[in-house]
C-alpha cells in the first residue's frame, strides 16, 4: 500500500490515471475487435513521428522560458528547408540531409530573433509565443503564395504559381528514416530507423545538459537570480535555449513529414504546438522543469490515447469521441499545469 502511494506520488496522479486509462484501452482492444498488434505499431510509429517535436520543448522549459507555444516557428523553418531542397531537386537521403541542414540554419536565425524578443517579455512568454507562432504562420501563408517556387511537384497545377497545401514526398525522401534497418515481423514493420533517430536526438539533448552550458541553462530556469549571482549571462542562456528548441522543432517536423509522406503547408503548423505541449506535460513536466523521461512517457501516453480512442472507444460507443477526448485531455493538461502552484514565484 505504502509503496503504491509512493509510486503514485512520484509519478503524479494525472499520469497514473491516464496510464491506467490507456492500459485498459489496450486490454479492451481485442473485445472491440481492434487488432492489438496494429494498435501497438501505430502507437510506436506515432511516437517516433512526434518524439523529436516533443523533445524540442525541453531546452526552453529548462531555461525558464516556459512551454514553447511558438513551436510553429521551428516548423516553418523545417517547411522552408524542405521545399527549398525539393525545389533544388535533391532526392533520397541526400535530400533529407540537405533539408535538415537548410532548416537548421533558418531555425537558428529565427530562434535567435525570437529568443531576443522573449528576453524582453519575461513572465509573459507563453501567451506571447502563442501569438508570435500564430502570426508567423499566417505570414508564411502569404509567402507560400508569392514565393517564386517553380518545381511542378509543389506548385498548383493551374496558374503555375503558389505552393500546394499538401506536397507528396514520394520520390523525394518518403519514409527514408522509417525504412532504415526496418524489421519486418509478419505484417508488422518495426521502424527501427525512426527510433534510432529519436534516440540520437534524445542523446544530444541529454549530453547538452551535461555540459557546462547545459548546466548553466538548467540553473537559469531553476533560479535566474542564483545563476546571475554566479556570473551567468541569463539572457544569453535563454536565447541559446530558444535557438536549440527552434532547431529541434525544425528537425522534428522533417522527421514527422518523412514518416507521414506529405509536406503540409499553410495553416497546418498551427496544429503542431498544442499536442507537443500537452504530451510533455502529460509526461510529468512542469512549466519550468522537463526531462527526457517526461518526453518519452508523455509522448507514449498522449499518442497512445490518440491511437486507441478512435478505434476502441468508438467501437464501444459506436460514435467518434476521439477528437473531443483529444481536445479535453490536451487542453485540460495544459490548464492544470498552468494553475499548479510552482515552488518558487518568478519575477
Amino acid at each position, binding site marked *: 500500500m505504502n509503496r503504491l502511494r509512493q509510486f503514485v506520488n512520484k509519478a503524479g496522479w494525472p499520469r497514473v490515471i491516464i496510464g491506467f486509462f490507456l492500459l485498459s484501452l489496450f486490454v479492451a482492444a481485442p473485445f472491440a475487435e481492434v487488432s492489438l498488434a496494429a494498435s501497438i505499431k501505430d502507437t510506436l510509429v506515432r511516437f517516433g513521428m512526434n518524439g523529436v517535436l516533443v523533445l524540442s520543448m525541453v531546452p526552453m522549459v529548462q531555461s525558464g522560458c516556459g512551454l514553447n507555444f511558438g513551436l510553429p516557428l521551428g516548423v516553418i523553418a523545417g517547411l522552408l528547408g524542405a521545399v527549398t531542397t525539393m525545389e533544388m531537386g535533391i532526392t533520397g537521403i541526400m535530400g533529407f540531409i540537405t533539408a535538415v541542414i537548410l532548416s537548421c540554419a533558418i531555425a537558428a536565425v529565427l530562434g535567435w530573433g525570437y529568443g531576443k524578443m522573449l528576453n524582453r517579455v519575461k513572465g*509573459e512568454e507563453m*501567451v506571447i509565443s502563442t501569438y508570435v507562432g500564430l502570426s508567423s504562420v499566417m505570414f508564411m*501563408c502569404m509567402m507560400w503564395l508569392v514565393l517564386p517556387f517553380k518545381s511542378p511537384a509543389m506548385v498548383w497545377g493551374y496558374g503555375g504559381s503558389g505552393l500546394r497545401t499538401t506536397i507528396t514526398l514520394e520520390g523525394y525522401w518518403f519514409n527514408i528514416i522509417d525504412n532504415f534497418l526496418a524489421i519486418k515481423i509478419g505484417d508488422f514493420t518495426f521502424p527501427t530507423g525512426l527510433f534510432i533517430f529519436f534516440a540520437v536526438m534524445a542523446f544530444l539533448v541529454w549530453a547538452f545538459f551535461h555540459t557546462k552550458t547545459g548546466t548553466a541553462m538548467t540553473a537559469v530556469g531553476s533560479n535566474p537570480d542564483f545563476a546571475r549571482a554566479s556570473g551567468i549571462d541569463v539572457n544569453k542562456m535563454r536565447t541559446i535555449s530558444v535557438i536549440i528548441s527552434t532547431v529541434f522543432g525544425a528537425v522534428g517536423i522533417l522527421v514527422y513529414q518523412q514518416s507521414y509522406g506529405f509536406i503540409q503547408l499553410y495553416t497546418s503548423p498551427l496544429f503542431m504546438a498544442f499536442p507537443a505541449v500537452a504530451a510533455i506535460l502529460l509526461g510529468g513536466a512542469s512549466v519550468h522543469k522537463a526531462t527526457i523521461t517526461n518526453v518519452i512517457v508523455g509522448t507514449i501516453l498522449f499518442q497512445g490515447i490518440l491511437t486507441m480512442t478512435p478505434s476502441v472507444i468508438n467501437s464501444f460507443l459506436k460514435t467518434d469521441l476521439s477528437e473531443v477526448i483529444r481536445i479535453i485531455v490536451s487542453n485540460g493538461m495544459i490548464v492544470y499545469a498552468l494553475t499548479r502552484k510552482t515552488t518558487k514565484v518568478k519575477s
Partner: protein
Amino acid sequence: MSQNLTFTEKLKNFFISNAVPILFVVITLLAVPVSGFSANYLIQEMITRIGRNSFLVLSLLLPIIAGMGLNFGMVLGAMAGQIGLIFITDWSIVGIPGLVLAMLISTPISILLGILCGSVLNRAKGREMATSYILGFFINGVYQLVVLYFMGGIIPVKSPSLVLSRGYGIRNTVALDGVRQVFDNMIPLKIGEISIPLGTFFIIALLCLFILWFRKTKLGQDMRAIAQDMKVAQSAGIPVDRTRIISIVISTVLAGYGQIIFLQNMGTLSTYNSHDQTGVFSIAAILIGGATVSRATIPNVFIGVILFHMMFVVSPMAGKNLIGQAMLGEYFRQFISYGIIAIALVLHAWRRQKDKEMERRSLRGVKAEKQPQAEK
C-alpha cells in the same frame, strides 16, 4: 503639467499614443481604393458590422479595468449564448421573445463558466492571458461533448432539423430563421439605400451607459484599485479574488449576449465554428482601436470595430486586385489579427519591464541622483 507642452509636443504625444489606430487608418485609406468597393457598400457593411460586433468587443472592457488583461476566455460566454440559441430554435420560439429567452438561458451557463474561469485565473495570477486562452480550448472540448453527443440524447432536443440523422448531436449549421435580425429590425430605419439596425444600436448604447455607470460604482472603483495593486487593495479590505471573479463573470455573461446579437444578425449558427474566432477578432479589434492590455475605453471599441472590419472587408478584394489571389487578403487579415495581438502583448510586457526598472531607479532618492556623473 499638460499646459506646459508646446503644440508640437502635444502633436507628437498624440501620434505616439495613437500609433496603432493611425497606422490602420493609413492602411485602410490605401486599401479601399484598390479594393474597388463603392462607398455605399462600405458604409452599409460598416454599419452592419458595428451592430454585429460591438457588443462582443464591449464585453472585454471589464476584465481590462480589473487588471486581468485581455479576456481570451470570452469564448466561454459565446458558447453559452450558442446553447441558448440552440434551445430556442428547438422550441421554435421566435422573434424578440426568442432572443430574450436565449439570453435568459445563456445567463446561468455563463455565470457558472465565468465562476470557473475566474477561479482558475485566480490560481494562475500573472499568467491570466495564457491560461484563459487555453481554458477556452478546454471548454470548447466540453462544449463539443455536450452539443455533439449529449444533445438529442441525454439533453432533450427534438427538432429533426437540428439533430443529426444518427439521432443525437446537433447539426453543423443551425438556421436561425425565427430570430434572424429581429433586434436589427426592431425599429426599422432606412436612410437612402442604407438600412440601419437601430434596435441593435439601442441595445449597444444601453450597454455603453451601463459600463459608464458601472465605472462609478463601488465595485468599479474596487476593480480599478485591484488592477493597479492587488496587495494594497487586499490590505485595504477589498475582497480581491472575489472581485476578480465577478469581473470575469460579468464579461462572460456579456459575451454570451454579444454572441446572440452577433448570430441574430448572421442568421445562421455554425454550431462548432461560430465561436472559434470570436475571441481573436474581438481582441484584435479592441487593440486596433488603441486599447492596451491594461487600458481600454469605449471609443477604443468603436474605432477598433470600424478599422478592423474595414480591413477585414477590403483586404481580400485588394489582394485579388493587386496580385490576383483572393486568398492573400484572407491570410493577410488573419495575419493582422494575430500579429496585432502579439505586438500589443509584447509592448505591454516590455513596458512593464521598463516601468519596474524606472521604479527601482526612483528609489535611489535625490541625493544619489548626482552620483552617476561623479562616477565618470
